[in-house]
């Protein structure tokens, strides 16, 4: 999965601080964990470096974020004029500029599928990085007929993006992932979601053409990024402690017993071994067998 030659945390940090040229960073989020902490984290990462020109294209947000240099309320000016307005705020592709430009879009769900790819490609240029959110749990608005073979928005965006932050909440301790999904489906939002610590499935597309996928645990309070360790499986493993004090019976097994248990060859294992490739039922008549000619179920052959 992860390439050993890279430290995922450092790579993630570089991506957040826009050190690596990355044209289109896509945040996949859901109501259980929205992308705002990631966007804020980007702002935090770049705040120390050279001045950035940040344009916020808001389909949903009404309050101008403090970091935004320019704030474009799409509903006010209409979608058709957005591109022109943004272009006027950005340097042209050929110009030589020192400052970096970042365009934040909230969110791409509000762009109809036919306009989506042209919208994105018209924004991306060598000086401009696009940081856009796409809500993965918002059902796609019905598109016009004639787009039967066109990829859906999610596929399209995944294809176009150079970095993908697929954001998942840390599952609250009171629930398991199925329960969480079921409550969200009912719009019963449990406690402990939308926190400042969350999990990011980070896809990084390298210039070399390689694509790397990391699972990271992101803490936007302490600004630490660690490789996410899935310890849910370990918990499933039976430990002697788990069986203590459950009953008055002794349920635990000693190391020796366990070893003996592991060495028992299970009957079906032989069937899986290589030379048992062709299967056949071998029946040998023994003297104690009670073979009945009349019984149709007796004889399987």
């Amino acid at each position, binding site marked *: 999965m992860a390439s050993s030659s890279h430290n995922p945390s450092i790579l993630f940090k570089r991506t957040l601080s826009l050190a690596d040229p990355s044209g289109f960073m896509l945040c996949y989020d859901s109501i259980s964990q*929205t992308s705002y902490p990631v966007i804020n984290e980007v702002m935090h990462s770049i705040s120390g470096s050279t001045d950035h020109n940040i344009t916020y294209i808001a389909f*949903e947000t009404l309050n101008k974020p403090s970091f935004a240099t320019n704030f474009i309320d799409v509903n006010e000016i209409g979608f058709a004029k957005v591109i022109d307005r943004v272009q006027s705020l950005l340097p042209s592709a050929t110009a030589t500029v020192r400052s970096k430009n970042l365009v934040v879009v909230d*969110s791409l769900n509000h762009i109809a599928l036919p306009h989506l790819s042209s919208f994105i490609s018209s924004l991306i240029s060598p000086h401009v990085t696009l940081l856009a959110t796409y809500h993965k749990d918002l059902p796609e608005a019905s598109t016009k007929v004639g787009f039967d073979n066109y990829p859906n928005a999610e596929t399209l965006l995944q294809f176009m993006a150079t970095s993908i932050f697929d954001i998942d909440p840390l599952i609250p301790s009171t629930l398991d992932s199925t329960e969480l999904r079921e409550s969200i489906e009912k719009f019963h*939002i449990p406690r402990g979601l939308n926190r400042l610590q969350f999990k990011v499935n980070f896809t990084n597309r390298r210039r070399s053409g390689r694509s790397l996928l990391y699972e990271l645990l992101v803490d936007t309070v302490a600004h630490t990024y660690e490789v996410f360790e899935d310890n849910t499986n370990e918990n499933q493993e039976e430990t002697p402690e788990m069986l203590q004090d459950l009953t008055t019976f002794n349920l635990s097994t000693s190391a020796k017993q366990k070893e003996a248990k592991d060495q028992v060859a299970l009957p079906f294992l032989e069937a899986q071994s290589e030379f048992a490739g062709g299967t056949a039922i071998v029946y040998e008549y023994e003297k104690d067998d009670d073979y009945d000619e009349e019984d149709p179920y007796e004889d399987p052959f």
Partner: protein
Amino acid sequence: MTTPQRQDFILFSDQSVIPTELRAVSAEPQHHLFLVTSTMATQPLWLINALVETCVSGGPFSLNGPSASLKSNPNSITTIASLVHEENFYHNALRKLKVNANGYQVLDILTNFILKNNDKPSDKVLDELLELFPADVQSTIILEQPELLLSLIRGLTADELNKKFILPLMKKCKLLIVASSIDLFQNNENEPLDTNNSDVQEFTRFVTSLIYNSIVVMNLRSLDTGRSKDVTGSLMISRGGQSTNSPLSVHVVENEYLYLTQKDSTKLFYR
């Protein structure tokens, strides 16, 4: 069983329901959304009343008994608009709570809505609806069941409703409180929802967008075990999509209460 202790109704870390930042006049206009989700079995009248009371009188006195009087917000009026309840329904309920009638107004958008709007294009209907609301960037608007518009206006999509009504309405006030019914999404086990149905998709899209836009989500629902004598249901307070993006200095206090509604009074308990 001893009587469990009554609890105060708190939404934010400064022990308030509506933080002072949202009640004070702010220089730069801010627009926020609270979402109340409920079902037929657990309707939100008492919660809406408590929120109105907080806006008008300064605190949810109907929920936690008399407490130190907070400064009420004399700057602006609170507007209540419902697509399912008539004007008197709220007047009567709020009168019983002795909420100062000068502090709020009720917009009747139920009466003759169909007769007035049946044949109009959706944009016009939404524009006219918007005009009914006062444009006061310091005020609070409470809107009940806007999702009904998806049924009532032919061809209206969730995105249009959101962009042409909910967001512009948010811009007209400082705090918009939307009470929405989510019956459609309950009981999925017994009666699965046809997710390919485009109407269902619009409803899902609308409610999901509301959650994305809200700071706090208050969910009212009945107990899984059914009706009970001493508990009406549970009130879950959880962070909405904007909770990590809000310019407010306070944060949402997530909580789950049990509540009991009897006659005109509601009591909250911790779960």
